[in-house]
């Protein structure tokens, strides 16, 4: 089964680029059983990205209060995601909302996991912070190697 890796986030908002950056690096190392796409959010695009395949891995920055660079893995097929993956403003929808919509519509993939990378800085135009940079390298190695 091919697993689709979806890197969610906004490249221009500091550590929110973690997801797209993982997807970009993986795209260079993609194999037959792994594909990688970037998604800059929004309910429709995120919903489309996570549906229509059997196995999905979403990589997204999170803001849970953990130490920056902390990597956590959640099984979204088992139940709702923690609030750290919900949209942080009234301007959009987050991964959590897209996952729940897919769940109630019966479109959730059999396997869907979310890898959260704790961010530190979300400023417009800011570069990735060092702990997040390190976490991205770890996640890419694990996914490409595993």
């Amino acid at each position: 089964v091919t697993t689709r890796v979806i890197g969610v986030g906004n490249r221009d908002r500091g550590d929110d680029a973690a997801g797209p950056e993982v997807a970009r690096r993986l795209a260079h190392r993609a194999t037959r059983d792994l594909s990688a796409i970037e998604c800059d959010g929004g309910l429709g695009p995120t919903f489309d990205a996570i549906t229509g395949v059997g196995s999905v891995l979403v990589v997204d920055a999170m803001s849970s209060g953990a130490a920056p660079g902390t990597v956590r893995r959640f099984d979204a097929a088992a139940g709702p995601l923690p609030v750290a993956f919900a949209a942080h403003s009234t301007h959009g929808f987050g991964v959590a909302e897209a996952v729940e919509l897919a769940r109630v519509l019966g479109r959730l993939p059999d396997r869907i996991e979310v890898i959260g990378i704790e961010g530190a800085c979300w400023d417009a135009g800011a570069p990735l912070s060092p702990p997040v940079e390190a976490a991205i390298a770890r996640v890419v190695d694990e996914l490409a190697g595993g």
Partner: protein
Amino acid sequence: MNPVTGEHRPRTIHVPVLARVEGEGEIDLRVRKGVLAEVKLRIPEPPRLFEAFLRGRSHLELPDLTARICGICPVAYQMSSARAAERAFGITVSEPVRQLRRLLYCGEWLESHALHVVMLHAPDFLGYPSGLHMAKDHPRPVLDGLELKKIGNELMTLIGGREIHPVSLKVGGFWRTPTTREVRSLAPRLERAGELALGLLRWVKEFHFPELERDYVFVSLRDETGYPLDAGRIVSNHGHSVDPMEWDRVFTEEHVRHSNALHAVLAGHGPYLTGPLARYALNSDRLTGPARDAAHEAGLGAVERNPFRSILVRAVEMVWAARGAVRRGHAGRGCRGRRDRGPTRSPVAPLRVRHRRSGEGGAHRAADGAELAHDRGGSPRLRRGASRTRRRDAARGMRADGAQSRPVHLVRDPLPALACHPRVRPR
């Protein structure tokens, strides 16, 4: 009323967060003697000062920067900005360029209307707190709405270069135009969009619409031909027909203490309404073919004055946009052109962008003209709707949150977004 003293104490109902509207908004209702006395719609987000930071920028940067005012209707801002600059330079774009722009616009209307009708607005009629809750019981329309929005995204991506904040449009034409083959390849998707839109219209027309009519002052664009989209004069149902350049002659904008959105009034008439009801009332004679049939099927007359039924107009406009896109898609061809002028029509309201040209062609003064004031000035509308609800709810002994829901619903009727409204009046 105090049951012991019999006194009526003024009561304030505060709605701190408007859900299912992009951006942040609050409503305060003041009730005296069981009657709604005052309504304030607050838009607390700060102005983003586009007027200031666009100064000195090259005209080539203006459309892309101005588009950032809104993520739901970026094309409207982009198009208005490009047309303002074109007008300043005396440029008229070629007909193929204009048709391609209109096709891009259709993509935005499909995106915006599908999101608004299904995910933001429909839950109000069916009694769900969110589109997510509604999806459990009404999966089909939600899936259809998402698919329709996706087709709108595809259209935006093909012509605009990406689905939100497109980048292909420029002053005088396009940076890149799609090939004839690319445009025509989208035709089956656009046919599908037409079917989906009609299906959604048939779904929403079965909703229960509360009875409420108001004698609105309607303001909309009206083009020389067709339903208004990217050009035209500003017209009202009180005989106005003004060139967009004469905006300042008939409209006045004011700062109010409670909101960061300017309030606009029409000279001699005060608050006025824009959005689907106004657009439809002033242009329903321009609908033809499947769109006219759809309006008839929805039970819409030539004018619709019930704000709750704006969802029907929006559904008809989805049919219109899809069918119009099919037509343009079939006729579509890649084009290289340069020229045009004026304000354009967001899915929400007419948009005016004003750019003043300096000697070098940079923007000397630029107003991000989110002329969406109309409905902020429409508090009387909220007042009346809420007042009725309040009386009825009082009779039924409902809790305060029952009284909140109707005015919030009324805010969602005309518009999907609040965040693009805050701005300062340019001096």
